[in-house]
């Protein structure tokens, strides 16, 4: 049965894409929007149901999945001698965890988009792209070989490009789409090279087989395992927007907000995390590479959090927050806390997806205004949006018992216990910053006095039900997913006297990650609520609380007004704070640095190369041509077409030959 159900999961969206792309425009023009939307949205809902029926047995390690997961081979995709790649899917607990996020958020975003796109003539195109994205992402997650995963990887990149530039008549959107595409290519080169290195080392592209061969004790590798790991990580850095390839994600917010929620917060940007987690045995055997992963991850986390402090575009704050949280996940992967990284991936997918959909609802309510300086006091006017966003904000801040607390706490605790105290320390600082900038966003958007344009003010309205329903449905996992996935393990299990059991998600993912985690750290230590673990929990809760309290104090809460004057005084207090303020406002000048390095200096180098190519290389080639042509032009004058001239030539030739014969023969011997 699963042999049929699993291929259906990616098949339905690609059929939906083909149908909508071919007939969507005509249907929309003839019968209205609903006709073009019913197939893609209905298809994704069916996919969600099918995925659920696959996820439940897969995470429970039931037959036929078992602990190793189920392989479904459709056909041999590329039979080419020693290179043989199957068109096949691999479903284990890790795949299932990703399927939960992708299909659930995907489905809710499709429903939400019906409301969000209600005034856009390109709705059919939007839904066609969304379905293509669902297909690509599901292909990426389900793929059983590196090459198929790479195909999905590139396809999600293309969909991201197409959807960022969905409003292509807007120059900034078209530019942002190009930027995302190009920056992603940089990482993808690394991924492609990594796949080639894997093939060189192992002779197979099947993920499970190649990982087993790479990590075998007696493996003799052409390319060292650390290089392979770093090449794969380069791909992950591009897709998951890690420093220094992080610059594309904030600009990607030019796309429609549902796209930001689905692609640039909840699913596609997780692809890098998923890929590294999938390759966990490889990384576990390349510990130098893991330190790089951890360092880049935690650096991105603190860098992005600092930039989020001063951005005024509501979506950009969320984009930097996404960067920061992705940094957390990579830090977790780098310290060997794979299950914690996937845990954070799942909770973050839900609460960040919710935050983006909320921001879309806010933007919709204030008539396409994204600047938080022109919002404020909205909490009474759009209550559903406000309450769901409050839940998501507290969740990402890490206040128990909401989802973010559990995953972030597990992640930071594991970092400390695995001997990466510096990662833990920076992580705690980032937690303070996260809580603070999230409250800054809430305060500026919903509380305090209204700074909305007076013309728009009377027309502020709550969004239609297609938009609010997904918000409410997402608020539930954003609040409860942490408890649900960590129960009955730490930290709540021991607190309620359940003893030392693994949490639900840890139990699911155990077959995937346990060998690597054991290889790295040995058997896990018992959870000590009264000991080190309790202290770590208290510290991370305190960090979140400090951030929130400072945020509330400065930016207000419900009726309480914030102290905006104080904020401005603080940022302009002295040279150091003024510098810091300008630095984070200008995103630490990374865009300017790239502009200098690649546009100006790179442009000069390219211009010099072009000159060389044009004058020297082309000159040589064209010179040969010109000489031949000119010589021919000169010689063709000989061909007069007059018989006498030719005859004269013959005569002269004869005389010359005869004369030279006489001269030579007449020489005295």
């Amino acid at each position, binding site marked *: 049965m699963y042999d049929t159900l699993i291929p259906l999961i990616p098949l339905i969206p690609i059929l939906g894409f083909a149908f909508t792309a071919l007939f969507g425009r005509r249907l929309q023009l003839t019968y209205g929007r609903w006709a073009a939307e019913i197939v893609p949205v209905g298809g994704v809902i069916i996919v969600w149901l099918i995925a659920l029926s696959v996820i439940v047995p897969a995470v429970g390690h039931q037959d036929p999945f078992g602990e190793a997961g189920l392989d479904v081979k459709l056909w041999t995709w590329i039979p080419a001698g020693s290179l043989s790649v199957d068109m096949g899917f691999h479903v284990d607990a890790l795949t299932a965890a990703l399927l939960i996020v992708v299909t659930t958020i995907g489905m809710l975003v499709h429903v939400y988009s019906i409301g969000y796109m209600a005034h856009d003539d390109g709705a059919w195109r939007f839904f066609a792209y969304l379905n293509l994205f669902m297909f690509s992402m599901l292909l990426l997650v389900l793929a059983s070989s590196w090459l198929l995963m790479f195909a999905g990887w590139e396809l999600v990149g293309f969909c991201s490009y197409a959807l960022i530039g969905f409003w292509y008549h807007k120059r900034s959107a078209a530019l942002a789409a190009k930027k995302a595409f190009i920056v992603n290519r940089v990482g993808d080169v690394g991924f492609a090279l990594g796949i080639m290195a894997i093939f060189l080392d192992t002779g197979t592209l099947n993920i499970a087989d190649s990982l087993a061969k790479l990590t075998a004790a007696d493996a003799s590798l052409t390319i060292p395992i650390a290089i392979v790991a770093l090449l794969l990580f380069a791909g992950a850095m591009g897709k998951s927007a890690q420093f220094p390839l992080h610059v594309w994600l904030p600009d990607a917010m030019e796309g429609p907000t549902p796209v930001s929620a689905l692609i640039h917060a909840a699913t596609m940007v997780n692809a890098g995390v998923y890929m590294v987690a999938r390759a966990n045995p490889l990384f576990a055997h390349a510990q130098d590479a893991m330190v790089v992963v951890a360092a880049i991850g935690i650096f991105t986390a603190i860098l992005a959090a600092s930039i989020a402090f001063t951005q005024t575009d509501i979506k950009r704050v969320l984009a930097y927050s996404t960067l920061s949280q992705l940094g957390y996940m990579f830090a977790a992967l780098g310290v060997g806390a794979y299950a914690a990284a996937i845990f954070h991936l799942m909770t973050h997918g839900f609460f960040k997806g919710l935050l983006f959909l909320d921001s879309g609802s806010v933007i919709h309510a204030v008539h396409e205004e994204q600047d938080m300086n022109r919002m404020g006091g909205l909490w009474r006017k759009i209550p559903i949006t406000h309450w769901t966003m409050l839940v998501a904000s507290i969740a990402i801040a890490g206040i128990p018992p909401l989802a973010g607390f559990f995953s972030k706490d597990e992640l930071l605790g594991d970092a400390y216990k695995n001997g990466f105290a510096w990662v833990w320390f920076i992580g705690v600082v980032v937690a303070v910053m996260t809580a603070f900038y999230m409250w800054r966003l809430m305060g500026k958007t919903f509380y305090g006095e209204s700074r909305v344009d007076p013309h728009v003010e009377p027309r502020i309205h709550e969004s239609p039900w297609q938009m609010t329903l997904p918000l409410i449905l997402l608020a539930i996992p954003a609040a409860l997913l942490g408890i649900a996935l960590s129960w009955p393990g730490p930290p709540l299990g021991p607190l309620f006297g359940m003893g030392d059991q693994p949490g639900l998600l840890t139990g699911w993912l155990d077959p995937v990650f346990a060998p690597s985690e054991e290889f790295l750290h040995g058997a896990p230590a018992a959870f000590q609520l009264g000991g080190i673990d309790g202290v770590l929990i208290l510290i991370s809760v305190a960090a979140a609380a400090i951030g929130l309290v400072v945020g509330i104090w400065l930016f207000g809460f419900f009726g309480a007004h914030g102290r905006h004057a104080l904020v401005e005084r603080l940022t302009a207090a002295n040279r150091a704070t003024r510098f810091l303020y300008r630095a984070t406002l200008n995103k630490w000048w990374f865009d300017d640095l790239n502009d200098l390095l690649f546009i100006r200096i790179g442009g000069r180098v390219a211009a010099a190369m072009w000159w060389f190519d044009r004058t020297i290389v082309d000159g040589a080639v064209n010179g040969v041509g010109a000489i031949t042509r000119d010589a021919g032009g000169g010689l063709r004058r000989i061909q007069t077409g*007059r018989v006498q001239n030719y005859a004269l030539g013959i005569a002269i030739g004869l005389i010359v030959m005869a004369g030279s014969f006489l001269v030579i023969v007449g020489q005295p011997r």
Partner: protein
Amino acid sequence: MLSFLNGISQSLDAYLVLASLLFAIGAFGFLARRNAISMLMSIELMLNAVNLAIIAFGAFNRELNADASAIALIVIAAAAAEATVGLAIVIAIYRNRKTPLVDEYDAMRR
């Protein structure tokens, strides 16, 4: 030995001079005349000049006697064939272009 050649020069040079004069006249005619018929005639002159030289060599050198006769006969046959084909071509072109002048035969140049 050459008694049957009474009243005729006993010198090889005389024949060779005559042959080269004939050849020169033919070559000049071939190069200078524009009329295709005249050019064919000039070719015949040159061929016959060569023939004369060959026969002269054969007559004055006993060892070459038989060879020279054979070569001369072959040249006569070849000249006859050449004249036939040449005239046929000239007539065919003349029917097309209505001119015997080779200057006007420039179809391949254009």
